[in-house]
């Protein structure tokens, strides 16, 4: 599989997130979708809030306590929430870790 992100660290984060999404929504449903960095959580991946919470718990467990998902989301407005995609999360995690 070709790398989807330009830098290796981001690529690694992407692969991890992709794995978590499969675990949360079911690998067979994940495979039917072409999941890339631009996939949005609600529209493309059709994740509901229960799934997003399960996903964010996995992210926290793996990437560390400093990744405060609910806190980060609560500052968003409606359009940002609608548009939220995997790339946004990668950049957020990257920022938390740097």
């Amino acid at each position, binding site marked *: 599989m070709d790398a989807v992100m330009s830098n290796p660290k981001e690529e690694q984060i992407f692969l991890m997130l992709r794995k978590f999404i499969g675990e949360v*929504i*079911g690998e067979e*449903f994940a495979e039917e979708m072409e999941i890339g960095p631009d996939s*949005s*959580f*609600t*529209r493309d991946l*059709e*994740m*509901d*809030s*229960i*799934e997003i*919470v399960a996903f964010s718990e996995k992210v926290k467990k793996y990437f560390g306590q400093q990744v405060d998902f*609910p806190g980060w*989301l*609560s*500052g*968003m*407005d*409606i359009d940002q*929430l*609608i548009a939220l995609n995997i790339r946004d999360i990668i950049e957020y995690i990257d920022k938390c870790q740097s």
Partner: protein
Amino acid sequence: MSRYLFVVPPFFGHISPTLSVGAALLSRGHEVMWAGLQGIASDRVPSGGTFVVLKSDPEELERILRRQDDGPSVGGAEVLKLALEETYIPLGRMMMRELPALAAHYQPDVIVNDCICFAGAFCAYLMGVRCVTTTPVPPDVMGSAMDMPRIREWQERLIRDLQRECGIYSDRVVIHSDLMNIVFTSKLFAGIAEPAGSLQFVGPVRGRPEEGDFDWKRLEESAGQRIFISLGTLLVDIRRAFFRKMVEAFRDQPVTIVAATDPAILEEWPENFIVQAYVPQARVLEKMDMVICHGGFNTVNDALLNELPILIIPIAYDHFHTASLIERAGCGISIRYKRLRIADVQRAADRLLEDKEYRQNAARVKESFRQSGGSVRAVELLEEVAGRPVEAAAGDEGDRRLVDDMLFGGNVGSNGGSIKQNQ
């Protein structure tokens, strides 16, 4: 005797509880009028009552109604936008064209507005008439979104703009009554132990006219346990795909299915499916062993009133919240439509039919409904409000709480709601 004006949206799930309460008011000698944007079948209007169809812009109304079908394909946050910006606000604006004149002519003692019909509360405010709000589904459906300050700001801004447009210059949000909000479920089922002051949980209400023939003989002669499947009255687009899955799941099972849908959506139905567009649901459910539905509240209530276990397949809007309530009460199993596997549906149905605990838990919810008082209690409350002195509505500094959690107690809500907002 008093005069009541119910203001209702063009969604039957919201209208139907008001028909039951209205019928009870009429039988006590009160006068009752409904104002909506779309008529309902005349045999559904309780006798003695009047249903007035307000002038509307038919094209825009049609567009709003069709837009509801997009709910299943958009995400949680986008559904909020669809609900407020593309449904409640334009419906409110449309109703305000004629409702004030109608209300001025009818001179109601109480205006009863459905929770998504802002125009009813606006008229009450402008006229200085007592207002009561009705909420057909359990509140608290906003879930995590209410914890988000910028979403709250957005909602308040949209509502204040509409209020100004309608001549209400208060900073207060007046879309709901601060006197009384009648909720058609029980505290137990809603999971709200100590509701805020104005909330009154009366449980589901019955007694509205329910006509319609049904092939009772065929049902009597049918084999195996019986499952009722309904998708309610909205959600037209996904109906075919949904029932195809149901056919796949149950065609070779030793059960009889009663499917409440237009038979024409599929070319062929299996032998063990009885299919009919409008069924006398309350009476049919007395003969059933289980219900499968998306979470429309009237069907959920009817199922619980018959102590039936529920397989809930949430699709959009507030279905997810209802699904979580059903699972928490232990009276059903939830499988999200978007993640539905046929084998899971079959397994869930087997469990629900076999494990008596689901029935017992449904019976417990039913008992809580019974204790809530139903239409008798709703009528008592409405009579009590009619007897109160009218306070000067304008300039009232009372409850400054702005958009409350009841806003989306309508046909919408965020998906799920794991991060709960406490009442």
